């Protein structure tokens, strides 16, 4: 998607389509290989990357090809809009943090149990920020395309917000490991840096009215509706993230389902809706408009948002219950606590099924259109 958008920004062809196809092929091969490894119970990696480390080489190779194609396709780095900075940051930092997350293969790092955990979550935390740079960059590009206002992405405010994001990407990862016995400054730096996100949330609150006015004008555009959904989830997820970044609160929420709620809100509520918005926009540009499917996609957006809210609340409910258990003077056994969480898990499962149906209502028409478009061509 980034490479496709880059072409419309520069108005030129990609540096190399061949490289882009090889990049895609490498990712398809590694994805299939990873699924095969999971199905056959062949692990060896760590959280998020549980597959055998060999596949990491393929992922790194694919990412390097992406970086080469991106940089070479840009004619100049001067006066570029903020989303070009964001995409570039996302690609470079993802590559760096991904490599960093594999430092454990070196015994010096692996044998330091606490140090290894520290680096693991330093890299994972920044990696999420890198991915967000790619996603939010696409979102800003799309928003600019819808509004037709090219000045926003060149404004000082856009760059102040970008640098706030970059600052957080680099230094706020410590909230994952507040309870780890590391040097206290890791906690202080992360806590202080995380609080700069208050500016972002404050901006969302104070611009709420303006956002609603814009929403009324553009609500008929499907990709805009999806972006608006993502905006709502940005607010909810960011509010939760800021609370969890306060060590005094984090000590209760850490290791509970509240952390999962935060992750799900971010991955499904923000990332998936932005990705769906970009796919919708791309399909309408390159195939035909989706007028035929507006009704079903709209329904899908409503179903998935409401389901996700219930899904999210059930996780927070389970998390609060677990937090109470974790801090109780006298604790039941772990299995008894899990039994008590059962009602929350039932709601979670029902909301999850409904969420899948909602997403299917959005994805199915997009896929149908895309396939018929390929055959027509």
């Amino acid at each position: 998607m980034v490479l496709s958008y880059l072409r419309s920004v520069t108005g030129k062809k990609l540096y190399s389509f061949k490289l882009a196809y090889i990049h895609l092929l490498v990712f398809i091969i590694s994805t299939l290989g990873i699924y095969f490894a999971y199905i056959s119970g062949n692990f060896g990696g760590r959280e998020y990357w549980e597959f055998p480390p060999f596949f990491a080489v393929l992922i790194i190779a694919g990412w390097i090809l992406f970086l080469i194609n991106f940089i070479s396709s840009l004619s100049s780095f001067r006066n570029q809009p903020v989303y070009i900075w964001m995409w570039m940051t996302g690609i470079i930092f993802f590559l760096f943090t991904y490599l960093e997350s594999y430092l454990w293969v070196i015994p010096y790092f692996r044998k330091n149990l606490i140090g290894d955990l520290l680096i693991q979550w330093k890299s994972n935390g920044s990696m999420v920020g890198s991915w967000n740079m790619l996603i939010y960059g696409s979102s800003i590009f799309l928003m600019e395309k819808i509004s037709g206002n090219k000045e926003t992405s060149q404004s000082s405010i856009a760059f102040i917000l970008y640098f706030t994001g970059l600052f957080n990407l680099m230094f706020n990862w410590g909230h994952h490991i507040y309870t780890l016995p590391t040097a206290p400054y890791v906690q202080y730096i992360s806590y202080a840096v995380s609080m700069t996100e208050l500016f972002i949330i404050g901006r969302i609150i104070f611009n709420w009215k303006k956002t609603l006015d814009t929403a009324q004008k553009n609500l008929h555009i499907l990709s805009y509706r999806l972006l608006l959904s993502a905006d709502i989830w940005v607010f909810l997820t960011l509010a939760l993230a800021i609370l969890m970044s306060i060590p005094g609160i984090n000590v209760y929420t850490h290791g509970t389902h509240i952390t999962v709620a935060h992750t799900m809100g971010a991955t499904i509520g923000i990332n998936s809706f932005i990705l769906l918005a970009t796919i919708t926009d791309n399909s309408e540009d390159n195939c035909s408009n989706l007028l035929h499917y507006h009704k079903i996609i709209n329904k899908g957006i409503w179903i998935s948002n409401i389901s996700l809210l219930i899904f999210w609340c059930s996780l927070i409910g389970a998390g609060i219950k677990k937090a109470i258990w974790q801090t109780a003077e006298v604790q039941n056994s772990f299995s008894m606590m899990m039994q008590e969480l059962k009602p929350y898990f039932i709601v979670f499962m029902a909301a999850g099924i409904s969420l899948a149906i909602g997403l299917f209502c959005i994805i199915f028409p997009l896929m149908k259109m895309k396939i018929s478009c390929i055959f027509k061509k």
Partner: protein
Amino acid sequence: MIKDIFVLNYYSGMEFNEKNKILTAGILLLTFTVYSFHLYSSLPRQNLAKADDSNGKLVWQEKNCISCHQIYGLGGYLGPDLTNVYSTKGPEYIKAFLKTGTVVMPNFKLSDKEIQELLGYLKNIDQTGKADPRTFTISYNGTIKQ
């Protein structure tokens, strides 16, 4: 006034030219690099001279224990946090679980060597500190300490 700060109106007239952008990015990048390498070079030192320590961790990864269990609150949610299981439950208790599994945990059919290596890992991680949230105190400024 508060609104002006949050909406960033105060900065709207600020000149953010190419030079400023590159300078800001450069300072951030340099700070990040220095901080990262400082962390790499000052990893918390532990007395882990025995060869089986890292092997225990590799068994832990190969059997994907982290998908259900946690270490310092990091990991899965189906099983309990195992950071201090070695000192609270003891090696025999852990061995019994590893050998037979439970209603929820499958029997991974671990060899005696793998069990010993995992015990070594759990013993070492136990000695690094306490993961129990009840052992933390919260300061007035929101920070925590043990």
